[in-house]
């Protein structure tokens, strides 16, 4: 058995780092059946006791488990004194002192997968112990919100780009607003806005771990993004449900600039396409130098109707900035 360790999502103080999804579009990273068993680190940090940490992490797992159209379930085994990043066949969520990543990293998820099948067999989430944390919405980064994001990676999800940011004068980016727990940049310290899953997150986890009802009840929109006849890679395509006002996104990938936005309940959708300029493209793609960000925000030329169990085709034409 050959195993691969994939670094799957770290969180710089404001920005989460790259994760390990879509290295190979044909290989989906996913757990096998049964509940995902995890241990919780028993360390007490200033302002966050081991017990408060355990509860916050438990709430984040429960949020993912509560998605009615996904089958992923979790079982907390108990506390552990082991380091989360040790490769020990045990899935652990806990604080870590030595952070080899950017010093602005909040947390990191690593996945141990079976090469070939993409089956995840171990995942560890390490929270940077040097960061100020909070579990009660006071000053400090919110453990539950960051855990919610990292558990998305633990499940095999990549980053989503539904969010708006602005550049900070001092460098880096600040989130103005976000519509997904999987946005690569975290809400500010003291914010608990990130504790909630959005339609995009629910579609993502349901796509990976679908209930039979989900597969029957939802459809998709696919197509190509083009600019003057040439394929656009890395365009962020968001499907807006005109009746439920939810947003679900994905990217155009491959040499043909193809996209698929899946897990959409039937209904009328508006497609919006934007360049990947609210975060570093390499927080979304391993091969980020092919990402084209030189085009204006655009919309599909008409409403796209999604049917249950069917794919609706809609091509998008964009123009240079």
């Amino acid at each position: 058995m050959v195993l691969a360790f994939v670094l799957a999502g770290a969180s710089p103080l404001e920005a989460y780092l790259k994760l390990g999804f879509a290295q190979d579009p044909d290989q989906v990273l996913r757990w096998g059946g049964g509940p995902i068993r995890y241990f919780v680190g028993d360390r007490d940090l200033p302002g966050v006791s081991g017990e408060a940490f355990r509860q916050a992490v438990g709430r984040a797992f429960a949020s993912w488990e509560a998605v009615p159209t996904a089958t992923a379930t979790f079982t907390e085994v108990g506390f552990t004194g082991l380091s989360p990043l040790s490769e020990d066949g045990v899935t652990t969520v806990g604080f870590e002192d030595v952070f080899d990543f950017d010093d602005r990293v909040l947390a990191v998820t690593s996945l141990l997968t079976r090469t070939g099948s993409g089956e995840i067999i171990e995942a560890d989430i390490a929270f940077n112990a040097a960061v100020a944390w909070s579990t009660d919405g006071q000053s400090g980064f919110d453990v539950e919100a960051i855990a919610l994001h990292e558990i998305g990676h633990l499940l095999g999800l990549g980053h989503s780009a539904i969010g708006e940011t602005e550049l900070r004068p001092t460098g880096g980016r600040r989130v103005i607003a976000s519509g997904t727990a999987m946005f690569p940049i975290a809400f500010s310290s003291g914010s608990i806005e990130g504790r909630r899953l959005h339609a995009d997150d629910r579609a993502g986890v349901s796509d990976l771990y679908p209930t039979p009802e989900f597969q029957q009840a939802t459809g998709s929109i696919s197509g190509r993004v083009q600019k003057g006849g040439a394929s656009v890679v890395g365009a962020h395509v968001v499907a807006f449900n005109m009746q439920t006002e939810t947003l679900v996104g994905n990217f155009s990938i491959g040499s043909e600039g193809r996209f698929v936005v899946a897990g959409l309940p039937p209904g009328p959708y508006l497609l919006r396409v934007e360049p990947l300029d609210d975060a570093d493209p390499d927080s979304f793609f391993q091969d980020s130098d092919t990402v084209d960000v030189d085009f204006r925000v655009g919309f599909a030329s008409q409403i796209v109707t999604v049917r249950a169990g069917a794919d609706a085709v809609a091509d998008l034409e964009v123009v240079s900035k």
Partner: protein
Amino acid sequence: MTRGGRSRVVAAVVLGAGLAASAPPAAGQGRLEIGVGVGAISGYQIGGAEATLTANTGSGGGEFTLFSIESELETAIALDLRLGWRLSRIFAVEAGLGYATPNVATQVTGDVEAGSRSFDTALSQWIIDGSVVVHLTALEAVDGRLRPFLVGGLGYLRQLDDGSVLVASGRAAHAGGGVKYALWNPADSWIQRVGVRAELRLLIRNDGFDLEDRRRTSVTGHASVFLAVF
């Protein structure tokens, strides 16, 4: 679907004919009336929607609007096929099939990264309905050639996109009135009357394509030719 709908209409009319066979005949009026017409169906707003994100406000839970949309189902030409069965001199029942291709005009405004824009989506709209027609015999004029009537009933609405994908379906109630004018009234033919008909209806929709799931009202106006037989 359309073909299925059409055959249901015919079945309803045949059934109606069977039930009404024992009703007293309306001599010289023609029991079965077939009409084909053209008209317009007025447009109406189908509501708006907002694409919002969660604002990074700390603990306030505020919203950030990415963009807003407003949509309108625009006024369209409508075709109309009607089969009526006269139960008495005053009352008749009717089944109708209406077809229109209204445009959905959608306006996108307030996009944080793009200017306002609008785009059009064509819908095919079918309405199958059943009505009760009350002829206002007391108001007949021009030697009985001009005959006003009131009409009311219920219908079923289907709206499809240009790929024939069902966008919405729903119920629609209607009420209105109009006049029929007999152009030709042969005395000894199986054709009893040939005439023209003009009518206005208020159409109240409970479902159908709508961004806010609200009841919407529109007006339809039709002019048609009819043939009454038997």
